[in-house]
């Protein structure tokens, strides 16, 4: 019995140490992959045709999700803001300004990053993993086509371009959702609502957080491509590539949101007016 327990405990230790070494290898691998991606991004020419295909897949086809998600989030956030502000004795008039400030600075970039991580991160991870295990990536290489530039760089560039645009759409969809809630609960007109939206925000509240989503795009694209491009197993590998892509890119998006929020509070403590 004692022998059995000892061997079980040893196998746990072995499994733990092997998990740690795998994590270590994956971290180093991801850093090397990201540095190669950065180097290749700076090398022209880019594959414009493939980038436009990926922009359609990653950007355009994400628009319905972003718009629906934005409107719903706008309704929920307006309700929350309204409840909080009314408890402090505020009036309806300040709700549009508070909502737009929250959406442009935080919720828009964060929610866009998370939604795109879920939709695009998993798709890129699974797609590249399938290309790898069906030897299509080897086929590109055997035909003297640089698979890294054709598959990875094009997807990362598409993510970098698409994220700020989708974030802008998301922020306006959230504001539209806010207006829907407001219209149902008060008699504020659309023009008054729009007029009050920009009372307490400036360009700085929009530009920096939105541009920083390009970094989120780089992180989502690179992480998803890394797990897909370097997969070594079959069906299990595809599942893992897809899952790890989503988990890690979501974590990057959240971490980046915290950093941007800290930067905004430091540079524009009272709002970027």
């Amino acid at each position, binding site marked *: 019995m004692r022998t059995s327990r000892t061997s079980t405990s040893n196998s746990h230790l072995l499994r733990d140490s092997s998990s740690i070494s795998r994590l270590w290898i994956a971290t180093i691998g991801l850093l090397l992959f990201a540095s190669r991606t950065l180097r290749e991004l700076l090398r022209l020419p880019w594959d414009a045709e493939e980038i436009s295909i990926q922009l359609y897949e990653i950007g355009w086809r994400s628009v319905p999700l972003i718009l629906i998600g934005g409107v719903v989030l706008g309704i929920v956030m307006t309700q929350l803001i309204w409840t909080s502000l009314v408890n402090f004795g505020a009036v309806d008039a300040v709700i549009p300004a508070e909502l737009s400030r929250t959406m442009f600075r935080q919720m828009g970039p964060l929610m866009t990053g998370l939604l795109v991580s879920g939709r695009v991160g998993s798709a890129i991870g699974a797609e590249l993993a399938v290309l790898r295990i*069906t*030897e*299509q990536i*080897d*086929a590109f*290489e*055997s*035909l003297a*086509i640089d698979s890294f530039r054709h598959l990875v760089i094009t997807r990362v560039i598409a993510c970098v371009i698409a994220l700020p645009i989708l974030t802008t759409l998301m922020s306006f969809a959230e504001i539209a959702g806010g207006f829907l809630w407001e219209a149902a609960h008060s008699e504020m007109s659309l023009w008054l609502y729009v007029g009050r939206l920009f009372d307490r925000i400036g360009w700085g509240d929009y530009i920096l957080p939105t541009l920083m989503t390009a970094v989120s795009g780089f992180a989502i694209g690179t992480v998803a491509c890394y797990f897909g491009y370097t997969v070594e197993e079959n069906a299990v590998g595809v599942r893992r590539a897809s899952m790890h892509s989503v988990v890690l890119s979501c974590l990057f998006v959240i971490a980046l949101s915290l950093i941007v929020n800290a930067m905004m509070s430091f540079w524009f403590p009272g709002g970027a007016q």
Partner: protein
Amino acid sequence: MNLDGSVAVRFDQVSKSIGTTRILEDVSFEVSRGTACSILGRRGTGKTTVLKLAVGLLKPDRGRIFINGEEITALDTPDLMRVRRSTGFVFQNSAAFDSIAVSENIALPLRYNSSKPENEIQEKVLQLLIRVGLERDSHKMPVDLSVGMRKLLGFARALACDPAILLLDDPWNGVDSITAAIIRRLLLDLKQRCRTTLLIVANKMIDVRHISDQLAILDGGHMVACGPLNEVARCDNQIMRQFVSQEDSDARLS
């Protein structure tokens, strides 16, 4: 070993492991330009690894590999790409690009590796489709093709840039007898008319008997025999005897 310019492919004491498994051990052989060499061996003996090493998809742990006189094991990526433009690779599972149509699969290497205008590319694609008998399927997606047709698509794609060396990973695997005959005819035509060097991985002697000038036998990662086909086919080696007896029974059945 022959070091003159008549050698298209040369392996010099190449060893390769994947993980802790030794795949190839001190493999040496060479293939002269314009000839066909077939590598026979049971499954899992490292035949596909030889082909992937020859085109630089894998790096050897030890040893040197020369393609058209250039040591590819010492080349950086741009030079390796240049060497790859002179080779074609037909994958065992065809590895067709499944998100683009049949004709686009063939046009892709031409768009990347040549400066031909679009009308010439389309003309070349049509020629290749006719050559492999897929001209009616040019607009289909690879998933809509049978295994044999996908294999022919892999052929056409590999031939798009007129390679001087063609590497084929078990081209007869899983295809019907008519497609197998088409593939044999294509290979003979390439060898005799285009003087293309062929390095073929196969599992059956009957498939390569009339194409190969040279035969290599791999067993357990070791090259147990290599030389002119008639000599190797007569050698007193257990694996070779099995292949020859299998060929006799295949011939009787056919």
